[in-house]
């Protein structure tokens, strides 16, 4: 899950880095997942290095949780 920089107060370089650059470094990730039959989007925290899902929760809980 990538957080967009403020579009009105960021440089072109920051913006394009947000759009196009991915580290793809294995490790802890926080991601948007979609349950397609119901169209429900939720958050998954997983470790891509160990292929393990650590937590799933509703987007409303984002504020309460520290980034992994």
């Amino acid at each position: 899950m990538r957080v967009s920089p403020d579009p009105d107060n960021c440089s072109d370089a920051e913006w394009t880095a947000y759009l196009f650059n991915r580290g793809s470094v294995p490790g802890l990730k926080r991601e948007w997942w979609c349950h397609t039959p119901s169209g429900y989007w939720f958050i998954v925290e997983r470790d891509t290095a160990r292929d393990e899902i650590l937590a799933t929760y509703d987007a409303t809980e984002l504020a309460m949780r520290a980034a992994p």
Partner: protein
Amino acid sequence: MMYRLNPVAGEWIDRSSTLEFEFEGHTFRGFAGDTITTALAAAGEMTLGRSFKYHRPRGVFSLANHDANNLFQVGEVPNVRGDVTALAAGMQVAAVNTIGGLKGDRARFIEWLAPFLPVGFYYKAFHGRHFPRWERRIRAISGLGRIHAGAARQRTPKRYAFCDVLVIGAGLTGLATALSAADAGARVLLVDENACAGGGGAWTGAAAGEIEALVNRVSAAKNIELLTATYAAGVYADQWVALVEPTRMTKVRAGAVVFATGVIEQPTVFRNNDLPGVLLGSAAQRLLRRYAIAPGKRVIVLTANREGYELVRELRVHDVEVAAILDLRAGFGGDAYGLGDLRCVPGVVPEAAIAGSNGAVRALRVRLPGNGTRAGSIETIACDAVLMSVGFAPASGLLSQAGVVMQYDMALQQHLPAKLPPGVFAAGRVNGIYDSAARRQDGRDAGAEAAAYARGGHVGTRSVRAESLRQVSHPYPVFPHPAAREFVDLDEDIQVKDLLAGAQEGFDSTELLKRFSTLGMGPSQGKLSNLHGARILMRSRDATLADTALTTQRPFLHPVPLKHLAGMGFHPHRLSAVHDCHVALDANFMTVGGWQRPEYYKTSGQARAECIAAEVRAVRESAGLIDVSTLGKIEISGPDAGAFLDRIYTGSFSDLRVGMTRYGLMLDEGGIVRDDGVIARLGEQRYYFTTTTGGAANVYRELLLWNARWRMDCAFVNVTGHRAAFNLAGPASLTLLRTLTDIDVSESAFPFLGVREGRVAGVEARVLRAGFVSSLGFEIHVAYRNAGQVWDALMSAGVRAFGVEAQRVLRLEKGHAIVAQDTDNLTNPFEAGMGWAVRMQKPFFVGQRSLRIHVRRGARQKLVGFELPPDQAVGAAIRESNLLIHEGDIAGRVTSVAHSPTLGRTIGLAMASPNLATPGTTLVIRSSDGRPLSARVVRTPFLEAG
């Protein structure tokens, strides 16, 4: 020479059913239950194939699906594995990889060239400019089997299966595992690659009748399904396993998997160890017990473990003469195993097998141990079979796929699972446990733990028990010979010196050496060679196997026939609510965005182009009707609905008046055009909008994601499937609609881009005044169930139905671009001529930030209208995607082109370099047949009125 024995208890063959088949042009007979290889072996055929590189004669070796030199062409099917493929009557069997047949293979000469063909020879010698020429030559003499391009397509069904515990391997351990898991209440799927369950249990310590009793209990158990002749080809994440059956593939999702896969016996490496008649001890056991075949008349058992002496006992049961028991270990003799009456020699070094006139082994030359100060003597022992029982490698391919790291145990001289991921269990000999009682217990434990894990009650990982483990594997059964031909890998004809040469060249890790020497890259994927190869490599580096990992084992375990992997070619499509009406009107259908849509309606006696032109004329001259039910249709409601649309679309919608519609353009964050549609405001807090036919599902999903982030106060309903929609277009459309609706359609009451709700043909409808294909037109949206009624009413009023092709021409005449046809993944709205739909001054919309950059940089391309001179119109072969050429370079491409019946000439849209975008510019289009054609850039729309 091999021969068939009298009936043996438990044999897999059915002697009452004789099968006749052909091998290399001669007629043979076998029994039902035989494999191709065993039927030939029983008939005394020793040479069954030719080796891959040197074309040496080869025979039975493992009889366990690793015999890469027993590959056959069976009729049209190449590379059939003879050692495991059931014999069928009428089979036409031939050896592969021969020139002129198995016996007189003319490619034998290659072995004489062997001194000039060291490992890596092909890479080095043919690398460079002339490689393609050499490659053709080499390919002509190598390769296995013939492909019959005209062979009938074979479909293999797939199915999904679910179980609590999947047990792979139905030997002594696997049977105990399955019963234990089932006793614990689990639903168990038990699979085994052999034709019958039991594995090697019968010759590895099971009591008489024990295997039969276990199999009977498994068959009787209600919650165990047993699949034989089925191998697990691949193990994927979360216990997802692909099972290959002869005529089916099963994709099974298991709660837990127990790998009771056992071990693979490894050969002894000595000169001429590849001769027909030299085979693994376990292969001899399979021949004896399953197929009632004696491996020879006078055999030598070369051994380094108790399993070899058990084999001798079995041979004597069948009155096979054992010429000698040669033990590689010093100090081990037959006395230790109660076979002291036979010639048992410890500390033997095999020197070479010697071939007879038939190419098969006729003697074994060995060096006998010295006695104190006396040096060892060389002796040649006559025999017609050498049975090797010197050690095992765990069948760990599937375990590795499951993420298990194998660690070499120096005490056992075997790799053992070091750490098992959750849900993955191993049991039996693959764990290094050889004694039968301990294996049964290991299986019972694994079964119980796997069942507990599958229930979710227990998340533990098993570790291998250290007790009662005995070493059965010789640490280094490799005996290099000065004259070489000690084969490590029979698939690829790799000898000890090849590996040493590779290591010397610097390819001194298992992975590098594999790629340099092709060790383990043949059909059996190194199951008989990777371990010894690594032993040879590590010894050359003065290291041990504990210091390295073997090469990675990936899916598939055995080669999987392509027919098992090929999909069924499903192309599901959706049908509109009035599909039957289209059929009744003789529509020619095409697939658009997953829907079946009428391309045009056929009129007898008229060609496709004429039909389309007539549909276009109907719309321009009176009225036409097209089914646009395939458009995505979404309702959004709530206090923030308008503000949400402002953020999603480039235009402004919170200021849209109720009862009006506005065109909307949707971008991605990169400012690229993704979708478009019409947004209608039905109420203060209610909007209804359309998306492109192909984009409906994606757009809806994206909207939900955006609002999961923004959490605005609005809700969405995707009504694409709930509502049908028709576009009534043309100058007569208003008059026509007036007769069918209670909505006031007068110009003053229902302006252009208005939306009204009322009744059409007696049912509730939403009507949008639109101008996509004609200046005057109405989109009529009704409930799915009422669609037929409305369609029929409009058709009865004298409207002509038109299809997607006519719509493309009509909108092109009006100069409208189609998203994803006239735009691509690099097109921003300014380049597509849609800048009028973008309100850059809004505080925010998706893609706005990137558009600011695009605006500053200027357009890199422009969508322009063009037309061909009237004299070029007919037959000018310009197609979509034809290139624009300017000063010898590509300067764009045609995105839409059609002959306009209204204008009488060919018109189109092209994405062109900005310097070619000025009206009046001449474009050079390279047509599909390569001719350059001139076109002129013109203003759009091509047609103002109509």
